[in-house]
């Protein structure tokens, strides 16, 4: 078991009685110097947080490619999940993405950029307001967020922008949809290249019902790859609908192919 279960419930007032550094070391299994500040910033001053081994984050110990670090989030045995925040404490842009599984399995696999070694955390809010935290350290040689995207230098990037490739693996018991979206996902941190990234993605069935809602930010890798899981077969007529920070719209059918 990676973490000691349910260590503490932290109230905002608690932070006033001990220095942030001490609190970080004492409370955070990952020992991050940023933890208390980020907790207050992203979860609010009065947020109740428990470190919870049911929130599983997987990834490499050392990132081979800082521009494409594969990360998996899987939440097992937690009910009534409202939203899941993914943050990387020591990235120049900390918030990576946020998702709400609305019928899809509470899990997500994706690739992200890491500027340096950092904790990568999933913060899960349940219906009772409580936050459940899980995370890992991923070491990285650096530079993932401040390098220009490959797409930036491709003269024809507009002709592929927003194209979606999808593959579906399906059995009656469970299914997986893997997506690749063409997008430069520029962070705005490379000199002279403004931020340009996908902001929002939604998986919807033929009736318009939303099965998964995803808000994404600059640290998600260029030409993002996402894997979504469903209990049972994929919902009929599954579509990926979304937009980027420039108002470009993404709309693609993703649920038609049946493999295996």
């Amino acid at each position: 078991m990676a973490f000691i279960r349910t260590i503490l419930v932290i109230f905002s007032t608690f932070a006033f009685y001990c220095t942030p550094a001490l609190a970080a070391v004492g409370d955070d299994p990952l020992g991050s110097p940023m933890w208390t500040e980020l907790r207050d910033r992203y979860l609010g001053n009065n947020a109740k947080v428990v470190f919870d081994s049911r929130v599983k984050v997987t990834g490499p110990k050392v990132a081979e490619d800082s521009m494409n670090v594969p990360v998996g989030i899987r939440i097992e045995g937690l009910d009534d999940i409202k939203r899941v925040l993914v943050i990387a404490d020591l990235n120049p842009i900390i918030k990576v993405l946020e998702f709400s599984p609305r019928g899809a399995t509470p899990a997500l696999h994706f690739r992200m950029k890491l500027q340096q070694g950092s904790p990568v955390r999933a913060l899960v809010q349940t219906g009772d307001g409580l936050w459940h935290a899980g995370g890992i350290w991923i070491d990285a040689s650096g530079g993932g967020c401040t390098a220009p995207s490959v797409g930036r230098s491709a003269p024809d990037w507009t002709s592929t922008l927003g194209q979606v490739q999808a593959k579906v693996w399906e059995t009656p018991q469970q299914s997986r949809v893997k997506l690749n979206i063409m997008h430069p996902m520029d962070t705005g941190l490379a000199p002279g290249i403004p931020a340009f990234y996908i902001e929002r993605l939604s998986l919807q069935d033929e009736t318009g019902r939303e099965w998964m809602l995803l808000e994404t930010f600059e640290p998600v890798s260029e030409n993002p790859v996402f894997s979504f899981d469903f209990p049972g077969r994929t919902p009929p007529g599954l579509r990926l609908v979304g937009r980027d920070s420039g108002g470009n719209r993404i709309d693609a059918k993703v649920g038609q192919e049946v493999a295996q």
Partner: protein
Amino acid sequence: MKRTLTSVLVASAMLTLAAAPAMAVTDKEIEMDAKTPGDVLSWGIGTQGQRYSPLAKVNTSTIKDLVPVWSFSFGGEKMRGQESQPVIYKGKMFVTGSYSRLFALDAKTGKKLWQYEHRLPDGIMPCCDVVNRGAALYGNLVIFATLDAQLVALDQDSGKVVWKEKIDEYSAGYSASAAPIIAKGMLLTGVSGGEFGVLGRVEARDPMTGKLIWVRPTVEGHMGTKNGQDNGITGTTNATWPGDMWKSGGAATWLGGSYDPETGLAYFGTGNPAPWNSHTRPGDNLYSCSTVAIDVTTGKIVWHFQGTPHDGWDYDGVNEFVTYKTKDGKHLGGKADRNGFFYVLDAKTGKFQRGFPFVKKITWATGLDSNGRPIYDPANRPGDPAKSADGKKGTSVFAVPSFLGGKNQMPMAYSQDTGLFYVPANEWGMDIHNEPTTYKKGAAYLGAGFTIKTIDDSYIGALRAIDPATGKIVWEIKNNAPLWGGVLATKGNLVFWGTPEGFLKAADAKTGKEVWSFQTGTGIVAPPVTWEQDGEQYIGVASGWGGAVPLWGGDVAKKVSFMNQGGSMWVFKLHKSK
């Protein structure tokens, strides 16, 4: 499985963070813009385009105390021509920059609130620098056009993109640089790309969603639409264009338009017919080089006036049509055309009242007839290449004005106090010849070669006060380099204008005596604005040398090549001792 993304509207409901809009610009406010000095809501300071302010705190006696309040750098490496007129609402200034950027600033302090940088493809084809001329305000949105021919609407408070619409394919030569205007709750826009044989047009959209309402092509033969249905062909097919030439006929509406709520008409100027080689397209080539008056309710052309029928010199008629009332109650409009003539027309009917040169020398025409039609000098139209010995190059002629015009994109002002127009004019000519050419999508479609020449070593530019009733030049202030910024007139008996040499200047509106100047550090090619905030009058202008002159200026280079680029917003007010 692949789906290509298209840029379309995104319902505001999709914005999770959309708060209740704290600001909301209304149609009424836009119609009253010229009379409400606390804001600047439209390009033209009022959609009529008079660029006249009733503010008088800064006047001929107080102007000696006019000093800078703040300056804001547009930053980056993108220091190219800054032709933008800012808009100001409830203490926020929205100013566009080169390369399709938009900045939201605190109008009083210059503090940056947010900035938007449009993601541009490499293949954009703007003819005349990577400029933008300004944004429109409506509701809680600020809306501007981009060099890849898109319209982007952002939330005034957050800077988030609310909707984006594509006007047309940038790869076919389309671009957009003009400021949109609002008329009767619709967003009106034009297109750029006359050098690529695009189809000129005026489009009306729902400003809150970007949804297209009507399209009115400005070349005869093309079908207009309204709410997705056919809405009548523009003109009569092949009446003034031979064969298929109208299909790539140009007439780009690249400087946008003006709108007079009293007539319900939007006035859009149209550019050159394509290609430049006029021998390939005998006829008047309607509605190129014209002002078209469009009933914004129907999306149909009510009247037109063509300054240069069968243009052979690239005398775009895009120049703004500024409506005004005479002392005896006539409702007229004035236009200083690129071809060197100033036209006065009836605002409602387009009936020609009078026309006269506003530049000292015109060679392509010897004058105007009683209907305002030019009397050509055939010797000064570039020769037909088909009649040359090898068929490759027609006779070269020296024509005045040059194709950069007696006046270009820089908007003039009209003072309600003096009844004069203040026109930034230029005196220059060109050697021009024609060559054979054929239309190819996305390729330059000119069929001409040219070199711009000076005609007077002592000056090119001249700010001229012109009486539209008599055609008399009441006064002028000469400028060594060509003028490329616009003009502002105020009740303080002042006119403000900028020069490529970097000075923002002010002159007595009645006498033409220069009373103030300030060096902004780089050339000014943008129109100044003024507004009032907390009881004080502010003057603002974007500064940043560029535009068409350094790209196409030919022999003019000797007057401008030493100028340095930049990119900033300057704001001034009267100094107060504490």
